[in-house]
């Protein structure tokens, strides 16, 4: 089994897959952000809480022009039955498609299977892909740990803010906080940085409000 992983800032691997919304290709999501995520299996407890949580943040994702695409190594019939069960039992409609990756094609392409955890299930992986199809962030969680939706929103906010304003964001940053001005690249820029009105600890660590 291939254990290669995709790389940040490279084109996300293209695929065509059967989903609960029909056959989709990665390129169908071009021009919007995409959160591609895998879960270990349908009808399992942690995954169910995650799907409800993903559905809850879906409106927030839509405001940020982000689509969601789930994946597990289950059949589309299993996905349909599980989605219907969640709707019936928890009154939550899952508004996004889920890939039925029975042949593990997409899971292998994206390194979603961690053989040390399971050889037959995908781990809890999150791939954030930008509107140009470039892989911008990856987060991996083990099977026993449900994902933090606020962190996923924070990563998207951080990437979109960094792209829009040409800045970086500090540890624990959240939308509205000060951002980091990219570090000077020359002695001249370093000398001039301190007089530019930023909030600086020193020449290499300066922040500003947006």
């Amino acid at each position, binding site marked *: 089994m291939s254990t290669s992983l995709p790389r940040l800032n490279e084109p996300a691997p293209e695929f065509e897959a059967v989903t609960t*919304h*029909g*056959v989709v290709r990665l390129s*169908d999501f071009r021009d*919007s952000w995409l959160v591609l995520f895998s879960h270990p299996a349908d009808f399992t407890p942690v995954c169910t809480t995650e799907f409800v949580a993903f559905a809850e943040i879906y409106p927030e994702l839509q405001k940020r022009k982000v689509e969601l695409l789930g994946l597990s190594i289950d059949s589309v019939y299993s996905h349909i039955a599980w989605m219907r069960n969640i709707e019936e039992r928890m009154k939550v409609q899952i508004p996004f498609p889920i890939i039925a990756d029975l042949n593990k094609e997409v899971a292998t392409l994206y390194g979603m299977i961690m053989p040390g955890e399971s050889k037959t299930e995908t781990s809890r992986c999150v791939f954030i892909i930008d509107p140009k199809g470039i892989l911008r962030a990856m987060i991996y969680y083990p099977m026993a740990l449900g994902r933090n939706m606020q962190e996923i929103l924070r990563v998207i906010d951080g990437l979109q803010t960094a792209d829009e304003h040409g800045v970086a964001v500090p540890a624990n940053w959240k939308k509205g906080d000060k951002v980091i001005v990219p570090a000077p690249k020359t002695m001249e820029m370093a000398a001039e940085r301190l007089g530019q009105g930023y909030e600086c600890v020193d020449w290499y660590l300066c922040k500003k409000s947006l």
Partner: protein
Amino acid sequence: MPCVNADGTLVSSAKKILEAARTPGTPAELAERSRFPLYRVHSALRELADAGMALEVDGRYQATEVGLDRLGR
């Protein structure tokens, strides 16, 4: 074929997307007209084109005679 029901009728999303394609449009324009996400429009248009119900010319899609027949004109 996810766009077509077992009885041969179009599923409602495909019908709305094909309706939107009565006038030629890019997938983005058809997504706006039909109020479906762009990925669903891309996916449906591929199937509708394979089934001869929509035709793509220079990136714009339009319902064909076969497609209009399926819509009941």
